[in-house]
């Protein structure tokens, strides 16, 4: 009889286990399309606790790849916008430079003709307007990147807190759902800041940025603060942990924040510097010729553009000389001491088009202007390639994860049927043993 009682216990436990299996299979099917869900299996039969089917190494690789892909996409998007700013919406600066020299060439044949002179001044004003517009676009791109850095730093701080809370939940229960949630938060955080999430021996996740700064230490989150650097006027990113502050602006090399930092501090800065240099070179090279020649009134020494004393800020401050802008008769197309019909000044201006007067005497004005767009275009083209590459890597890792941890509904339905049959069989077993016990007790 004691054996019958133990059989009853076995049957009852087995039934409970099969019911756990049914519950787990049902839960798997219910979460088949839940982002980040790892399928579960019945672990210890006696306890009926589910086991999460996943691989920490693979999860780490996925988180790293997510950071790379997010960075590539954000970088490509930012470069596309900058490309539009320096090359879209009308004639490019090199085209406007070409148009100016073309009008000068035409005026060389008719230096006393007011229409030809007006056309040169109009072309100069168009060039100035174009340079100023592109400078404003580059400045806007810088501000937009800065805003995104600040916004994403705020989001990263919030996610760091969520990750710390997830670590607390995992420490309390070890629930697979909590573990999935923690992995998902780590992936999203990686998309913002790059870095790496590692699971230590105590089962707690630590999130470390490139360069070694710890953003989340188990249940203790730090703050990712974007504050204005007084020296540059743009955001610098710091990890703040109590009284300790660590500047990670140069260290963050992944995620959306990494993309925007690289974009702002390298690509935008380079475009702005080159734009200023071109504006300065246009002003100084054409002024040098213009001041040496005379207008229709025979007076020389006048500039074509308002003189500039430094490269920094030249693009936003370039301007046609106000007196010339108001009166094209002042356009210096004649050599000094000759009559108004002389066109030596026009020929000298026209020849500047093919002289290497830009970028320290290494290129023509047109080529220097082309280099601004070309640099952005090459970076943009490379970025598109990086997006494709990182997308393939992410997709491949997603496939591996799905193969290991993904829910196959057909498989789960099969498991469900198996557990149901086993549960039904155990129920009959228990019923049979119960019947036997009942008979024995009745016969006592």
């Amino acid at each position, binding site marked *: 009889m004691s054996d019958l009682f133990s059989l009853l216990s076995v049957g009852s436990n087995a039934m409970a286990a099969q019911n756990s299996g049914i519950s787990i299979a049902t839960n798997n099917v219910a979460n088949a399309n839940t982002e980040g869900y790892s399928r579960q299996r019945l672990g210890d039969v006696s306890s009926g606790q589910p086991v999460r089917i996943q691989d920490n190494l693979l999860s780490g690789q996925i988180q790293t790849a997510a950071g790379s892909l997010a960075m590539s996409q954000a970088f490509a998007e930012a470069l596309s916008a900058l490309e539009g700013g320096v090359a879209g919406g009308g004639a490019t600066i090199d*085209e406007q430079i070409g148009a100016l020299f073309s009008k000068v060439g035409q005026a060389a044949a008719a230096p006393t003709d007011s229409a030809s002179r007006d056309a040169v001044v109009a072309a100069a004003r168009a060039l100035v307007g174009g340079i100023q517009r592109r400078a404003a676009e580059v400045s806007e791109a810088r501000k937009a990147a800065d805003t995104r850095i600040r916004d994403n730093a705020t989001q990263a701080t919030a996610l760091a807190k969520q990750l710390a809370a997830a670590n607390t939940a995992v420490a309390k229960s070890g629930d697979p759902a909590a573990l999935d949630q923690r992995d998902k938060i780590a992936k999203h955080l990686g998309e913002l800041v790059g870095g790496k999430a590692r699971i230590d021996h105590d089962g707690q996740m630590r999130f470390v940025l490139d360069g070694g700064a710890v953003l989340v230490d188990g249940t203790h989150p730090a703050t990712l603060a974007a504050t204005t650097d007084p020296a540059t006027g743009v955001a610098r990113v710091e990890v703040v942990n109590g009284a300790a502050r660590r500047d990670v602006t140069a260290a963050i090399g992944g995620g959306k924040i990494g993309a925007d930092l690289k974009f702002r501090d390298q690509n935008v800065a380079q475009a702005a510097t080159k734009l200023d240099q071109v504006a300065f070179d246009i002003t100084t090279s054409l002024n040098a010729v213009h001041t040496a020649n005379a207008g229709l009134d025979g007076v020389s020494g006048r500039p074509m553009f308002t003189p500039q004393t430094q490269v920094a800020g030249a693009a936003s401050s370039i301007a046609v000389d106000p007196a010339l802008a108001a009166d094209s008769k002042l356009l210096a197309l004649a050599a000094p001491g000759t009559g*108004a*019909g002389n066109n030596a000044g026009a*020929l000298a201006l026209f020849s500047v088009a*093919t002289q290497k007067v830009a970028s320290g005497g290494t290129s023509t004005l047109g080529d220097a202007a*082309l280099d601004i767009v070309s640099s952005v275009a*090459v970076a943009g083209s490379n970025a598109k390639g990086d997006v494709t590459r990182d997308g393939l890597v992410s997709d491949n890792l997603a496939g591996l994860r799905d*193969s290991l941890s993904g829910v196959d*509904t057909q498989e789960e339905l099969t498991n469900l049927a198996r557990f149901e049959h086993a549960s039904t069989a155990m129920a009959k077993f228990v019923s049979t043993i119960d019947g036997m016990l009942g008979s024995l007790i009745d016969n006592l």
Partner: protein
Amino acid sequence: MRITGNRMIDLASASTTKNQATVGTVSAQLTSGMRVTTPSDDPTAWLAAQRTKMRQALSQGSGAAVTTSRERLEVSDNSLASMGDIVSQIRTLAVQGASDTYNANNRAGLGAEVQGLFQAALDNANAQGNDGEFLFGGSASTTPPFDAAGVYHGDANVRSVPSNASLTTAVTISGASLTAAQGVDVMPLLSRIATALSNNDMPTLLAALPDLDTAVKQISLARSQGGAAMNALDQTTAARTVLEQDMTAAISRYVEVDSVAAASDLAKASQSLEVSRAVSSHIISVLAPST
């Protein structure tokens, strides 16, 4: 490798999306006719196209200068031709007036006629272009180069224009070529003959006759210089026309779409899209739970 149903659907969906994007891209290229719509589509081709456009702009500037100058040279040549005819007529009348068969009254009549021809020659010497610039004044081209007496007040400056990016060509004829610097002062000579005839001044008239031959040669020389300049400009125009056509073709090759190749790409991409859609439908139907 374990493949879940969701993975199969994701793979089919990604393939369809990729093929749709390809169809979209090729369709946009065919519609716009452009292969390179933004610099990053093909930075090398874009850069090459833009450099060619810069050379084209400079060439067009030179071209406009050459066209304007060619038109002015024609006007100048016509004026010189008229002056040549006038000087020849005056020479005929002067020879007549120098004849012993003419008396003072006859010579006075010839003088009036020569005076009228002198005025016509003066008008031609002070010819202007469409913009009002005086064609024979050298660089002093905003005021009439020859005064009422035919004295030249311009300079010897000859204007050159860029015939291409690196060369210039002389395109004006200075009125100095009609002065004593090149032979005789042609206009005052004509005025002197008119006065001599009117005043029956035979010594002055006879002394001027040889100078008329020189004047004819001076005008002829000026015309030939103008003609040579026009020929030079015509040659540069012909060369530049070919060059600009080559540039336009080059730009087209760099950034425009090859319609035939693109149409073929569109057909292939469309076919791939149809296949991926069919595969997606099939996978979804296979994975649908049976009722």
